[in-house]
């Protein structure tokens, strides 16, 4: 019976599915965010990262779900779970879909404020980002490659990576200093480690495959190698510009707007 209603609901709005571009409209996303804070954050977390309800930002089921399915889940609830239906009008429900999409959408698909060219100048100049990060083969080795940053990260992740780099150090980029039994010192980022071996990338881009038994000291840093003061070193506008530049980095030129 419930399924029957869901099918009816689907067919009722089938004519009024908004375009992909409409779902990227910042006004719609903001309206969706406002409603989300009122109705959804209690279970799914204010950032959409889950709680009593599933993670909506990184969860595969939301990422894979078609827009119509998200619409149906909001409108009708999810049978067999605590998720209730919300009897909002269609536009309001689609705004919520737009917000949910924005949580996990790659930055290149988002409409981002900021001056891309100025962001480029900061990345390669004053910000000194290219000392550690590479884009299309230009730049340093020790930080994550950003050639595809806009395709593989959300806007939120890009921004957090700039202003709070130590909050989430990317896998394989924890700083390590080692001293071998013979006294040789090596600094770098640890790509992987366990009790038996370490795989370290040094600042020159050379890999070192090391038996743990050959080391006297292994010192892991909890702070990212990346400076933590960009929030004060750069203005809010400059950070917007940098985010806008990174959001446009995609190895395939397929950003739609």
């Amino acid at each position, binding site marked *: 019976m419930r399924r029957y209603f869901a099918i009816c609901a689907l067919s009722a709005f089938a004519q009024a599915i908004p375009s992909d571009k409409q779902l990227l409209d910042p006004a719609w996303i903001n309206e969706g965010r406002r409603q989300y804070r009122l109705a959804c954050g209690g279970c799914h977390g204010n950032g959409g990262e889950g709680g009593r309800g599933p993670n909506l930002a990184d969860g595969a089921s939301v990422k894979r779900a078609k827009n119509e399915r998200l619409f149906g889940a909001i409108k009708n609830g999810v049978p067999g779970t605590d998720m209730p239906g919300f009897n909002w009008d269609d536009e309001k429900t689609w705004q919520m879909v737009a917000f949910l999409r924005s949580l996990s959408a790659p930055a290149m698909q988002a409409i981002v404020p900021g001056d891309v060219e100025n962001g480029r100048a900061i990345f390669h100049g004053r910000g000194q980002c290219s000392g550690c990060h590479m884009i299309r083969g230009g730049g340093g080795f*020790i930080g994550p490659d950003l050639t595809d940053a806009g395709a593989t990260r959300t806007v939120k992740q890009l921004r957090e990576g700039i202003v709070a780099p130590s909050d989430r150090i990317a896998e394989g980029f924890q700083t390590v200093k080692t001293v071998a039994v013979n006294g040789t010192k090596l600094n770098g980022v640890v790509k992987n480690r366990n009790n038996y071996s370490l795989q370290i990338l040094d600042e020159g881009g050379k890999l070192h495959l090391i038996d743990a038994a050959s080391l006297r000291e292994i010192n892991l840093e909890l702070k990212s190698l990346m400076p933590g003061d960009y929030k004060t070193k750069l203005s809010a506008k400059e950070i917007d510009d940098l985010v806008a530049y990174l959001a446009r980095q995609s*190895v395939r030129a397929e950003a739609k707007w």
Partner: protein
Amino acid sequence: MVKQFLFLTAAIVLNAQVKHEDIAAGPGKNWLTYHGDFGAIRHSPLKQITRANAGNLVAKWTYHVDNALKLESTPIVYEGVMYITNSNEVVALDARTGRRIGRYLDAHSQLRRVNKGAAILGDRVFFVTGDAHLVALHRSTGALLWSKQYADPSKGYVATLAPLALKDRVVVGVGGGDSGVRGFVAAMSASTGEELWRFHTVPLPGEFGADTWGKLNTDWGGAATWMHGTYDPELNLLYWPTGNPWPDLNNEERQGDNLFSCSVLAIDVATGKRKWHFQFTPGDTRDWDAQSIPVLINGDYKGKPRKLLLHPNRNGFFYVLDRVTGEFLSGTPFVDRLNWATGIGKDGRPLEIPKIQPNAVGIKNCPSLRGASNWMSPSFHPKTQLLYVPTLEQCDIFTTSGLPAAKLLGSLGGGVDPVPGEPGQFFLRAIDYKTGKKVWEYPMPGPGKMWGGTLTTAGDVLFAADDDGNLLALDPFNGKHLWHYSTGQNLTASPMTFEAGGKQFVTILAGTEVYTFGLFEPSPRVTQ
């Protein structure tokens, strides 16, 4: 601390570069190209593992590939780092321990397809995505350098092969021959991805061979190039195998030889021009791609030293060609179940038996559609002078379809069924190329579904996949069993060997795992 790092970053340390000459020298400690060597004899000079001690081989590590799509990759190993591929993905592993160093997962690819491996040159690792982009990554960091589309998936093209890197370029091919694509081989600049040349395997009207296609529009035609070719650096020639003409089983529209389908093409690597071609199965109607590996050896043939090309074809005949000229030297059956031709004529053309072509009612043809051998790698041992060929004894009932073939729908123009009561069986066969005769064989009970290849070593060990998920070590002189290990999965890749930390290892990918073996030694104690 941060400042110190930034300062050091500015002083770029130049890492060792993989040079063309390193790859051309063939495998040693490293394994630098899909087959280990450009000529695909797949023979390693390593000899810590021998006929005498192979019985002491044990598993050293296993790496599980998340979301693996039937792993078909032969790893590349350079300076202790192993590169394996999965669909749209490259993983770098510490080859001694199997610990992951890094992973590149393509965020863009529109198609998820199997992948046969990576290539390495300079400071770069190359691979293809399912939707036919050649991607270049930095070999130490995995940094994405460029991604170039070389074929259009909306026209039916896919890509699954390991690219072939040599000199300053990377050579690639395409799949999609069952969807009616027009096959081609292309060379792209290793530094920029810029296309240097493209050779189409199906000629357009007015071009050489266009009159061999009957009424078919040769903008279609098939003759895909989905398997890695081989290369002779002295002659500077590529030997690229081509696939079936399209539609696969129905030749009504394409009466004729259908050049250059089911062929090997000798292509000048500098210009992309055809030097010669040899077609194994003219006007094929059984999907007998020529994608078995063209193995290049220099050897004695009828008392004369010659540059040879050995090729066990899907059509059941084992061919020996002169690879300088393309001259046909011999073609002998290497399977017993063969009923479509009585032999190969002096001109290299099969002597076909009339009225055995696939038809609308269904007719038993041998070998099967899968062929007497396929892309699973054979190998050659210089000491035994034998070629080791995974061989399938199998027939199929071939039936053509009366429906018009639909492009892009994967239409084969027909289909096959197993012959009731006649299951197929794999054998590993050792073939003497001078006579075409089988010297020994190793039967492999199993479901007839494996795609695993072989490897020989200077330790006189022949490694091979069997049809029951086992990696085998055999005596290459007589085929006697030395050792086996059950991976618990169907094998869809070929074994390779390398040395790291002073020790020889053997690796094979299976289904969803990477397995690496070495000689037993007591585990060192680890203090925590």
